């Protein structure tokens, strides 16, 4: 089964091609072909998983040589796949969640005339994502990386008849290019210093490379990861990407593609081991993003955008863990897996809510949906408990470990990183509860034409399966450190370090903050009336300031600066990033324009350029040579 692993890429790719080429003929059966292709990848992946379980720990790295991609020359390149616990984890996650979302989409996209194309793109995405995680070199990874990018742009812009959606796709496209430059740069550096870009060569070459090179490579990789995983400062595209159909958000912007950055960092562990500075930057970026994402999450009324902000924040946790080195790698991936389940589940839940509410996304227009959509409420609720980190649900097992690990270290670093992780947990509790209560509890604030109803079984079944995963997967994998042991061949065995605070204290503090967040959210959004229009909380008005003074500590401490910060961020987003993105970087065009003027159209000027150029080069060569 391990040698057949290439099938998991080939099957969805072929299926995607068939769907794209078949035309309207495929309208009747196209979606089921897509589902079958996706399901088959899970079957193959699971077979490989069983086979690998039967192997000893050190044998669990299986290279599948496909063919010599670029033979000849001093730099040779093979197309090969690497099956090891890390990649297999991703294969299972992607194929499993992916298949569920395929099933969900069959119902969700039922009324779309281009459903087969949607499934073609979904299959393409699955193939590219699996190539990304199975590649045995950065180059092939890059191919998958671009592939998921492409599929994601196609899917975000799937309803591109609406200009805003096309703009969102464009933004995602361009911001991701910035990240891609990071990956290209990193590969260039690797080629120059290690003479190869496959993981094995890089790992072997690290010991001989200078710290400066490694740091540069690490930072370039981080830039790539930031672009793909929507980390600071390249986070802006994720919120807009919610314009795509909801299953897309669940698959790409929650469970799989956005976590590719974390995968990249963990996969590049050898590089980061040699570059502690770069590693620290990774952790810092993670910490910053997790706080920032949480603050943004508090300010959003659009349910999908709030979830997107939450994703950003949760990936911040993973990044933070990945930046901690070997003690964090396993937890980063662990959280990635559990997050994949509960966040995908919640996105599907949001989709179900939208499905029942005429595509309404404003949470201020929800409320009291509990009764109307019981299954959605229960499944969403399990995801909510999981992300909060309430024991014994999944999130508890993964997130708590990250918080603990963040407190390990010397000097102020653990206090800052740990503090950020801890505060983030409280913020998460607040905004996720806000979202949950605003949607399912309180009074109904529906508009007249909305008649909420539960979604069909094709949609609820995947939600239920994901909810079960959200609830128990963490516990299952955490018992006896099963997951950490499974990943050990890749991430290495981590020495146990004691945090700067006792573990029980960290846990208590976390749970207390979570409880505080939930309570506050309930008080304000569950028990109290929620205005259907967003209240004006601008600092500019005295009234608003008074409001803040009356309010609780939570609001006084977090929301006011939070609002402020959020607005600043939103502004920075709109003003800086957008301008940079839309106009291209500002400096280059100016230089370009200046040089362009030299091309005046006057042939005599051209001749002059040539003569002067000739004199210069001849002087350089002759004076250098004599």
């Amino acid at each position, binding site marked *: 089964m391990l040698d057949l692993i290439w099938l998991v890429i080939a099957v969805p790719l072929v299926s995607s091609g068939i769907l794209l080429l078949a035309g309207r003929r495929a309208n009747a059966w196209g979606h089921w072909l897509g589902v079958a292709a996706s399901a088959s990848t899970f079957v193959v992946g699971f077979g490989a998983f069983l086979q690998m379980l039967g192997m000893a720990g050190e044998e669990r790295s299986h290279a599948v040589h496909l*063919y*010599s*991609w*670029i*033979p*000849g*020359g*001093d*730099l040779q*390149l093979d197309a090969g796949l690497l099956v090891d616990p890390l990649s297999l984890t991703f294969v299972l996650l992607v194929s499993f969640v992916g298949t569920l979302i395929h099933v969900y989409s069959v119902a969700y996209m039922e009324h779309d005339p281009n459903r087969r194309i949607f499934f073609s793109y979904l299959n393409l995405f699955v193939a590219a994502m699996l190539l990304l995680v199975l590649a045995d070199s950065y*180059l*092939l990874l890059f*191919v998958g990386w*671009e592939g998921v990018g492409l599929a994601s742009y196609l899917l975000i*812009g799937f309803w*591109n008849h609406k*200009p805003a959606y*096309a703009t969102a*796709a*464009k933004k995602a*496209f*361009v911001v991701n*290019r910035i990240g*891609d*430059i990071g990956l*290209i*740069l990193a*590969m*260039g*550096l690797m*080629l*120059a210093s290690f*003479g190869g870009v496959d993981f094995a060569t890089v790992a072997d070459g690290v010991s001989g490379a200078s710290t400066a090179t490694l740091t540069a490579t690490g930072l370039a990789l981080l830039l790539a990861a930031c672009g793909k995983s929507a980390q600071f400062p390249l986070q802006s595209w994720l919120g807009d990407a919610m314009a795509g159909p909801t299953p897309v958000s669940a698959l790409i912007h929650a469970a799989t593609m956005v976590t590719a950055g974390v995968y990249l960092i963990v996969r590049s562990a050898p590089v980061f081991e040699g570059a502690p500075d770069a590693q620290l930057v990774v952790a810092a970026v993670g910490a910053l993003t997790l706080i920032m994402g949480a603050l943004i999450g508090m300010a959003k009324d659009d349910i999908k955008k709030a979830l997107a902000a939450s994703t950003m924040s949760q990936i911040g946790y993973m990044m933070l863990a990945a930046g901690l080195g070997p003690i964090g790698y396993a937890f980063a991936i662990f959280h990635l897996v559990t997050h994949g389940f509960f966040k995908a589940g919640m996105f599907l839940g949001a989709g179900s809510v939208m499905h029942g509410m005429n595509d309404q996304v404003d949470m201020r227009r929800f409320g009291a949906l509990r009764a109307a959509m019981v299954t959605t409420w229960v499944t969403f609720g399990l995801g909510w408990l999981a992300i909060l980190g309430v024991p014994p649900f999944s999130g508890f097992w993964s997130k708590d470990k990250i918080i603990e690990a963040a407190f390990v270290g010397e000097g102020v670093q653990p206090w800052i990183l740990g503090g950020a992780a801890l505060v983030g947990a409280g913020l998460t509790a607040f905004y996720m509860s806000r979202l949950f209560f605003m949607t399912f509890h309180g009074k109904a604030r529906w508009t007249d034409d909305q008649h909420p109803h539960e979604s069909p079984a094709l949609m609820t079944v995947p939600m239920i399966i994901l909810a079960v995963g959200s609830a128990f997967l963490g516990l299952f994998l955490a018992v006896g450190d099963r997951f950490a042991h499974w990943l050990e061949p890749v991430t290495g065995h981590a020495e146990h370090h004691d945090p700067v605070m006792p573990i029980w204290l960290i846990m208590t503090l976390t749970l207390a903050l979570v409880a505080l967040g939930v309570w506050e959210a309930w008080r304000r959004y569950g028990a109290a009336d929620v205005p259907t229009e967003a209240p004006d909380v601008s600092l500019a008005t005295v009234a608003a300031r008074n409001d803040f003074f009356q309010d609780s500590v939570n609001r006084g401490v977090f929301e006011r600066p939070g609002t402020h910060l959020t607005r600043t961020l939103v502004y920075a987003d709109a003003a800086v990033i957008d301008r940079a993105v839309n106009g*291209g970087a500002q400096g*280059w*065009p100016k*230089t*370009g*324009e200046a*040089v*362009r003027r030299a*091309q005046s*159209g006057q*042939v005599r*000027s*051209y*001749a002059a*350029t*040539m003569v*002067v150029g*000739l004199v*210069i*080069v*001849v002087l*350089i*060569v*002759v004076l*250098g*040579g*004599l």
Partner: protein
Amino acid sequence: MTFTTPAIEWAPTAPFIVVLGAAALAILVEAIVRTPATRRLVQLILSLVALLAALGLVIVQWAMLKGAGTVVLEGMLTVDRQSLAWQAVLLVSGLLGTLLFAARTRAGEEAFASLGAASPGSTEETLARRKGLQVTEVFPLALFAVGGMMLFTSVTDLIFLFVALEVFSLPLYILVALARRRRLLSHEGALKYFLLGAFSSAVFLFGAALLYGATGTTAFAGVGTGIVGASGLDPIILTGAVFVVVGLLFKLGAVPFHSWTPDAYQGAPTPVTAFMGAATKAAAAAALIRVLYVALHPLAWELSWLIWVTAIASMLLGTVVALVQTEIKRMLAYSSIAHAGFILVALAGLPDQAVWALPFYLFVYGLATLGAFAVITQVRERGEDGTVLGEATRLGQWAGLGRRSPWLAGAMALFLLSFAGIPLTAGFVGKFVAFGAAISEGGWPLVLIAVIASAAAAFFYVRLVVLMFLTDVPEDQEDAIAIDYSPLARVVVIVTAVAIVLLGVVPGPVLAAFENAGVLLIGAAG
């Protein structure tokens, strides 16, 4: 004076004879066949047959070649695997280019003026158009150009190189001036191209004269040994070498000898731009390899300065200026300047690998160029009354092309990604082997700049992709663009697109063939 009849090995020269002979024959056809429509058909068939026959001969020679190759006439001409590889590359460009030359719009309009001598807007022009005249001389001219370029890649004598340079340049100057639409621009491009081209060939010739003065011979091998043997002649050797290289850099379009590129690319009829962009660069690179590796090899260290400076300048200028272009042909012209820089990167330090990496690089670059310009010929403006006009070359007009014609836009995107060097396209493999060559000789700082430049260059390629797929057709512009369908141009697009994908995914066999070409036969010192 006794005269001994020279013993010439005719067999290795067969491809040249076929191509140039067919060109001469085609000139006769001009005189014999009077009806323009028949003549066009005859010319097209003659060209294609000649090019295919030459390609066949090249392949046969490749298969039958024993040893390193043949030196014809004491080092005037060297036919080795390297030369055969280049000839094949040029013949493929020539074939695809000829198809584009013959492509016509739905309304039966070709890319060339109906009467080259008629000034734009004149009565003669209208009359000629109405009478269905065609400048069918473009086919023999293209054949002359292909033949000259093939010679250019194989000659190993500076003076013969000069003659070959002119043999392929003169037809190009003429072809550039023959656009059907925007004749004034076409004339302007031709005038600039011609004047600067003549200027640069004078520079080349003066350099050749200096090298002849220093070494007493113009055969590459002899010049090489002469340089080693000469003492106290460094000043004129170096000057001559730089002048010769500069003459070739002009044809390659490297900064600061690039100024003709954007204007000639934009002014020329698009099929000519396609052919010229693909083939001229290949021919120039081929000659550059032979000159640098055989004749000027002893000056490798001194000339490395020149290569580094021009490579960096070309990459930076090409990329930066392409970023601000609003005209698609100009954008591709600047991109070609950046590519000239990439080609020079591979030559840094004269690594062995470059000798086979560059033919491959230029092969795939040529394919993408031909494909991209073939797409451009099919995106047309539409007049208010619905008639299809000239090519829509403003970038803004390409907005939303993905919705008008997904396959065409997809092919264009593929070519652009290949230019940008995105993996799984042939362009990536080309860049990989080319930069790999440079790294093997310690040129990694240059490669690093090249990688950064490629990444930055990806911006303007991607900008067009974004424009095609993610931007809406502007309001009230729905009818402003027509996608014209020309079977021949479509064939070019399909062939090149398939080749780009295949060479990107499984380049192995082709690369292996090119690797065999990585040997230069150094002829006897004449």
